[in-house]
Structures are given as structure tokens and as C-alpha cells.
């Protein structure tokens, strides 16, 4: 059993419209110290052991499905 946390974020070159809206909303609520917000996805995956290297398999899943390399970056952490 492994638990993996995957973080998918928009590439910095892309306008993060949602992040901007959230930042505005926070500023308007009085949180003037908020200077930047980026929105991303957080995916928790549970994996059964099946002999494969978790690192390799998850990296593949990210490249193939979980992130779109044209617009997104990803990273992940594995714990047991």
C-alpha cells in the first residue's frame, strides 16, 4: 500500500484567471497582504502493491492523464 499526493499546477506562463479572482476576493475581504494566488489540483491516490516501482508508475500516470503538459506542471510525493 502506498499513498501518493499529486499536485498539478498551471504553468507560470499561463494566466491563472481563477487564482486572480480568488486573490481579488481575498483582498476585498480585507486580506490585503495577499500578493498572489495560484490555483491547482490536489489528487490523493491509493495504490496496492503490485511489484511495480511506484515512482515510475505515478510519473507515467501524471504524464499520460493527470496533467496536460501543454498547460500544466506536476509533482508528487509518495508515502506508505
Amino acid at each position, binding site marked *: 500500500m502506498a499513498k501518493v499526493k499529486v499536485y498539478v499546477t498551471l504553468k507560470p506562463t499561463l494566466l491563472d484567471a481563477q487564482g486572480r*479572482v480568488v486573490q*481579488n*476576493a481575498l483582498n*476585498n475581504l480585507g486580506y490585503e497582504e495577499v500578493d498572489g494566488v495560484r490555483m491547482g489540483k490536489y489528487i490523493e491516490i491509493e495504490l496496492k502493491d503490485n511489484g511495480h516501482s511506484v515512482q515510475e508508475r505515478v510519473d507515467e500516470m501524471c504524464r499520460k492523464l493527470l496533467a496536460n503538459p501543454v498547460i500544466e506542471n506536476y509533482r508528487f510525493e509518495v508515502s506508505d
Partner: protein
Amino acid sequence: MSIIEKTAIDVRGTIHDTAPIDPEIYREMGMNDAEYREVVKVLGRHPTYTEVGMYAVMWSEHCGYKYSRPVLRLFKKYREALDGAGLENAGIIDIGGGLGIVMKMESHNHPSAVEPFQGAATGVGGILRDIFTMGARPIASLNSLRFGSLDDPHVRYLFEHVVAGIGFYGNCVGVPTVGGEVYFEDCYAGNPLVNAMSVGLLKTEDVAYARADGVGNPVMLVGSGTGRDGIHGATFASVELGPESESRRPNVQMGDPFQEKLLIEATLEALATGHIVGIQDMGAAGITCSTCETAAKAGSGMEIDVLKVPKREADMTPYEVMLSESQERMLCIIEKGREEKVAAVFRKWSLNAVVIGRVTDDGFVHVFEGENLVARIPAKSLADECPTYALETEEPEYVRAAHSVDLSALPEPADYEEVLLKLLASPSIASKEWVYDQYDHMVQTNTSVLPGSDAAVLRIRGTKKAIAITTDCNGRYCYLDPFVGAQIAVAEAARNLVCSGARPMGVTDCLNFANPEKPQAFWQFRRAVEGMAEACEFFNTPVVSGNVSFYNETPQTAIYPTPVVGMLGLIDDCDRRCEQGFKAEGDIVAVLSGGPLSGGAASLGGSEYLRAVHGMVAGAPPRLDMAAEKRLQDCVLGAIGAGLLASAHDCSEGGLAVAIAESCIAGGTGAEVELMAPGPYSATLFGEAQSRIIVSAPVENVDQLRKLAAEHNITFTAIGNVGGSKLRIGLNGAKLIDSDLETIARAWRGAIPAYMVG
């Protein structure tokens, strides 16, 4: 809460040795002491924990209609159905050629108050299931919404997320959201109304029934897994919202429109195999409701095993499984031996389809957990024999006080143009583009009149016909006089359809009221139903389905009585549909009316003008003369049918001036009109007298129009011409309004977006 059932059970037999249920527990579930005693009497013993839960939810107002049923008998079809074959999920309206329309409206008010996005989304999902469970393909959705003032940030949050939730669900399932209404009034601030309506099309010979016929037939559960969602949702809907709402709230139901889309396609395909004997969707009270109602309707019985129910969560008790309101599930009764064929269809669409029990003939619903019998209840007692109550009514004092206000003594405004702009920018009147642009209103490629006109029109593919649909209710009128207000809701809905060229055919309703246990609220309810029933009979638009939502109040305030009418109309020739926008330069503008052009000062009662300019909710609602209204509608239908009109628009909130402005904006053209009428100018321009329709027509049709009006004993008043880039309105020779089209369009279009930026 996890309670171990302590019952002694004979494997196939009965339940005995049950201990009394702690009153705390059943009261918490919303059941009173007398009802508990009734359960004990019916069962001849104390109920198990699972059983008391099943009774509590089925005998809640939400499922059992224990307060409303006696009053709903005023609706003719309802009464006939109750005394006859029973109520189906949604009534069918025959539109000829072997085709029928089913439609229904339902509230999701309390869920939307606590979680607006999911509350509204699951409201849409629930009402769609009511439609396709009858074998109809959903072809349109509408929604009728009420919020507090947009000045309140929490209201903006609710509005934003309700609309987003409706769009999320409706857009994904691929059913166009073609119409609806939104009003903003302070009384809805803490208790918004979210009423979702769905319309389906079927071949009348293909209608499916919610009946568990045929002893031995397998009972199949299809669709999503069952989780702990919404346990006691029906109970939650049957109490007032209050400080404890947060903690009493059942697990929020999460909508999965993708699953629903698969369920629609799979269900319609499975029904087409001819092997489904009966089918019922699962809404409130989930498996409890669908098992006991299908068994009760067929006079059969049913046994199921909760262990066979596919679950999303571990360790669920029978109680939880029976009461779960997990979304996107259906119960099917299958011809014995054909279960594999039917299951294959659902599997093709990647859906669960599991046999969980079978039809029996003993009139009981038996619920097993493996070998253990955990509930044994006469199906009819659960489904049909909810105790009903005749509640007290008392006319509230505010009514008389409001009616006695002298509206002819009000000061006139200094600048009528300013008032017009103010009314156009009042959120209840302003353009709802901000809302319906977020809804896919074109998918299925049948929408022939898009949102923004009096009613949406959808062509019926493969025929020349089209249907028109609208929802209407002015809660303020109903507050001032629920009887007249409800009649106006019916009349206005019919008028909206007629303006589109459609003959009104039938009604579905959603009756939103406050706590019925308070005599004043129940008076409002009773009077509104009386008014609606009478009007529906008069206009020959029977109520074919509906829904009651009580307890719409917070400690601060009760909502206005809000009996929303959803109405269907039929257009024989889709090419003869009509819209509200002026069409051509030079066309004549006229008002067809059942009475005089202006209703005088009295027609300011309950008006938007009175609230927006004088800050008052007072007077009596405008008078409604149903006979005159009917003549007007017949006249306009005749005119549209004969191809005489270029446009037709119902005159409602904001009165003549607003209606004319809306026809200008929709047509992208100005107009010049000159009115002649006695009484205060404000009343002529902004009064909301009923039974008036603004039309435009080519000049050469005027004589014929006049003749037609005379034949119907209807007043025809030519008031001006279409054209130019300004709206000019004169009254008794005084030039009162002279605005650029652009200015009025900006006021009207920009109002809601201005609130919703950022």
C-alpha cells in the same frame, strides 16, 4: 449514531419482542407521539429502529403530504387520481400524434440554503429522474428562483452558486435549460427558493409505470452506489431553518451529472427492451420510498436484502441503507428471467445493475440484512396511509392593513424617465442574461425561441408542432392576497404562452410556503390553492403534477407565499411562433386589453413601482377578470394564428412603460408612443393592471386586428409606431419619456452584472 437492532427473528417470519423506541429518537426523526402510536397499532408491536426511520421519513410532510393532501384535493386531476389509479410521478399531457409531454417541478430550497451549488445541482438531477422514470426523454429544464436583496453579500453568494450549480448539472446532462424566473425580495434572504422544473417527451404508448407487478419478478437497483448522503433529507425539508440547521443537516448530497446522463440513456434503452415491468426513481427517502410505493401501487409486496445493495461506504447499517438519499439511482422491476438482458444495457453504459430482491404477494415490504429480517411493514401503510391533518387557518392581520392603504394619495415622481430606468435596473425586472448565458439552452437543437422572451419555444422534431413553456409567480401579489395572487400566476403564465403563439395545455406547480403549523401560513396556502385550482379549471389548464414545500422561514421572517406555476402550451405550426421584440420600422404598436388601457391608482397595488420608488409593499394585487383575460388570450392567439402580429409581449411587472421598453430592447429598435388615460401618470405608465398585451403589426393588418378585437370584445388601442433609436412615451399630451435605446438597454442589461462583478 449506530444502534444495534435487538430483535428476535424467525428466518422467514415475523418480528417480535421489539422494545419501545425512545421518544427522543423518533421525535428527533420528526415523528410525533400520536404517529408513533399509530405505527404501533399498524404493526401490532413496537417498530424496529429501521422501521421507525422508514415511517418517520415516509410520514414526513415532504413525502407523505400530511398537511397538504386534503387541500390539494381541490385540484381536479389530483382528486381524480387519488380516488382512482393513484398519482404517477408526473402527469402526461397529450399533444396529439401519439405524443405526450410529461412535466414536473420540485423544490430544493433547504439544501440550497446550506450548500447552494450542490443543493441546486441535485435539485435539477432529482426532477430529471422524475421525468425519465416515466419513459420520457427530458427535453427541457426551467428554474424558478427567489433570493434576498443583491445588496447582501451572502445573497450574492447564494445566487452565484445556485445558478452555477444548475448550469453544472443541466449543461453536463445535455438537457437545455430554456427558461425560468428570478425575483429578489428581502423575505427570501435566509431561505432562498430553488424550484427546478423538467419537461419530457414520450410516445404515449411507451409510458412506464412505477408498479411492482408480478410475484417473483426480480427487483433491480441501478445506478450509483449508496452512501450516507442525505439521510433524513425529507425530515430536514419538513422543519424551519434555524440556528441548529447547521448541526441537524444531513450529509450533503453531491450531484454527479455524468452518472445521470448515463442513467438517462441506459434507462430509456432498457425500457425499450420491453422487459421492465415497473420503474421508479429514488429521490427523498431513497430505497424506502421506491420499494413501498411500487409495491403499494401494484397491491403486491416486496422483499429486499440490504447486503446486496452496492455501497459506496463501509459498515452501513440497514437503517442507513434504507434512508440514504444518494443520487442517480433507480429501482426497476424486471420480467423474471430477463434480468440479464436488462442488466446488460446498464452495463453497456458502465452502470451498476444488481438484483436486490423480488416481488411478493403479501402486501408487506420485508427488509433483510442477509438472513436477518430488520423490517416488515405493510407497503400501503407506509406509502398511502400517512395520517393527514386538517390544520387551522387564520387570515393574517397584515392583509387588511395592506389593502386599506390609499394608493391614490401618493405623490407623483418628478421625473418619469428616471423611474423607468430605475425599474428597468431593478434586479427582479432587469435582464436575466447573466443567468441564462450560464445555461446551455440550445443543446438538443430544438430551442426555437431562446430565453429572453415571454416563453421558451421548442419544436417537436418530426412534426410541425412546437411547445411553449414558462414559469410564473409574483410572490408579492400572493402575499397581499394569496387567492388572487395565485390566480394571476396562472393567468400570467397562460398569457406568456399565448404571446408566443401557444394554446395553454396544462400546469405543474411548486407550492412554496412557510410553516403550515402556523394558522396564518396555512391560510395563505389554502387560499392560494383555492385560487390556483379555480383558475386552472377556468383556463382549462389542469394541474397534472406538482410539489409542496413548507417550512420556508427563518427566525427572522417567513417567505411570501410563492405558488409557482409551470405551464405548457402547444403551437400547431412552429412557423407561427411569436416573440416579444419589435420587428420592423413603421409597424404599429398597440395594446390589446381586457379592460381599460390603465387600471388607475389601484393597479399600483403590489407593484414594483410602489416598492422601488415609494419603498412600500401595500395595496391589493391588481384585479383579475378571468373572463376578460380569456377573451384577450383567445383574441391574441387568433391574431398570431392568422399571421397578423409581428410581436406580442405580456405586460407584467413594471407596467406598460417597462413592457414597451423590453419590446424595444429585444427588437433592437426604438418606438414612439402616445397614451391617453385618466388617473395618475404613474399608474398608467407603471401600474400592473392585468390582461394587457403589447403587440406590433404591419400597418396593413390594423383593420383586421381591430375587427378581431371587436369580435372578442377586447379593447384595441393603437398607441404608436416602431422605429428610430429612441423610446418616446407621451401621456395625455405630456412628453414623459424620451430615452436613447442604448441608455435603457444598458440600464436593463447591466443591472445584475453590476452586482455580480468581482
